């Protein structure tokens, strides 16, 4: 049986308004198989975050985009703001890179997570509190942290709060934009394990954005490699890491320091890369 796809992106183009030539994302198409983790890998400026943001139409008003985004047979690109709001945070949830700035400092973390429940369900505040406390324990935060303010939590705990907030309405698709880049390695490992476990438990689809192939190897089923606004290689994560085909993927794999071998780091030589890509 062929795997079912939950999201289909067709010919996505993003450019600043009135600068049609300046393509930030150039003809990107991909499928997200259901209940799998897909990673988008690329450097800063490769368009990986823009691609993810455009799925839920969160792009800056200075950018315009064209293309088709089909989620569960719904054409997201044709929906208006009100229709999109009912999907954002319920069927599709997001986690952002910086847990320090994505929580509001003047509200308690519990209030902010409960807000996400109340936005999509008709419940009393007490019911919402119960659901939130349950969500906190699910991500490994003691329920009595409900009344704490964001500055009273560590970076890892704040990222867990963000995950609780994203997971609370049991989304079908979770978009995680470099959720562990700002964290220490041990905390990164915990957060990656948490996302992985939640994904398995809820059979959720995850689109995970990162620049670190080490992270890809740990969690991804499928991987998309982006360079200068284009997908240059895609396929099963294991086979791409073992046997990269595109020169950019090869170059990216060579610049990760390794603890297992004494390999020499090779920073990407962009001129050479462009020459090799021209030959393809």
């Amino acid at each position: 049986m062929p795997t079912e796809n939950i999201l289909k992106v067709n010919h996505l183009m993003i450019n600043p308004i009135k600068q049609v030539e300046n393509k930030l994302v150039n003809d990107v198409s991909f499928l997200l198989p259901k209940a799998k983790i897909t990673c988008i890998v690329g450097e800063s400026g490769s368009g990986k975050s823009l691609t993810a943001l455009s799925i839920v139409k969160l792009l800056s008003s200075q950018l315009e985009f064209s293309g088709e985004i089909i989620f569960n047979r719904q054409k997201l690109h044709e929906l208006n703001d009100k229709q999109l709001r009912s999907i954002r945070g319920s069927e599709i949830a997001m986690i952002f890179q910086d847990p320090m700035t994505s929580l509001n400092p003047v509200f308690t973390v519990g209030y902010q997570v409960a807000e996400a429940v109340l936005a999509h369900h008709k419940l009393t505040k007490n019911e919402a509190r119960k659901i939130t406390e349950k969500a906190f324990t699910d991500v490994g935060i003691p329920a009595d942290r409900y009344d704490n303010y964001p500055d009273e939590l560590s970076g890892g705990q704040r990222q867990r709060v963000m995950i609780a907030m994203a997971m609370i309405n049991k989304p079908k698709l979770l978009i995680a934009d470099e959720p562990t880049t700002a964290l220490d390695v041990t905390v990164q490992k915990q957060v990656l394990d948490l996302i992985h476990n939640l994904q398995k438990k809820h059979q959720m689809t995850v689109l995970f954005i990162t620049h670190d192939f080490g992270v890809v190897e740990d969690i991804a089923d499928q991987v998309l490699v982006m360079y200068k606004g284009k997908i240059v290689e895609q396929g099963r994560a294991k086979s791409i890491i073992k046997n990269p085909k595109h020169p950019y993927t090869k170059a990216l794999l060579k610049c990760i320091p390794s603890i297992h071998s004494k390999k020499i780091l090779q920073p990407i030589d962009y001129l050479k890369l462009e020459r090799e890509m021209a030959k393809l």
Partner: protein
Amino acid sequence: MYLSVKNLSKTYSKRSGFLNTKTSTIHALNNVSFDLDKGKCLAIVGESGSGKSTLAKIMMKLLDPDSGSIHLSKQDVLNIPKQKIKAYRKKIQMIFQDPFSSLNPKFTIGQIIAEPLEIHKMGTPTQIKANVAKFIKLVGLSDKDLSRYPHQFSGGQRQRICIARALIIEPDIIVCDEPVSALDVSIQAQILELLKALQKKLNLTYLFITHDLRVVKYIANEMIVLQNGKLVEQGAVNQVFKNPKTKYTQTLINSIPGSI
């Protein structure tokens, strides 16, 4: 021994409770000792809150420890008289984590790199100019960049500028406080390569603070691991990776993503 740190301790007091009446002490550094030879790189590894940045600040004499001693090429660092601190800072320079906030946005790159020379009154204006041109090329930028401003550069280029600024007065030791953790992997590789090449060329000694063990393995000869201000592991990098003595070091090694 070139650099010798003995029994360094530092506590911070923290006030909490109603009207800040409760005081508790936090051991940021608890009896930390290590030695380092000239031309080597020592990695200081730990998570946030482990005391690694406190150690860097004490090395730079930005902070005084409660007890302990530091000797750098036989000079007693902690008892340097006030008027000689400036001379000490000529020997030790720092590269910071965030290349976006450690460059003055109102200065041109030329002014930024020349500033240490001016502060330490090293050379005439023409000599300074020649020196700046030499060091900007050393870090892989061109002298055309000298008249540009920090916002015109990418993160990796800014970190190169920070490196040029640290190197220009030819210090003996460079304290690198997470110099690559704010950068993308490919840029990280460029900066690590650059730091390694410069170390070879100029016989530099590095104190390299990081939480990423992949970086440690790549750049350092020796390492210490700090946990809550205590030194829990010490030794040659290869030895520690092969045979970690404490459970905490093993946890750190296990946390490295991937196996590439």
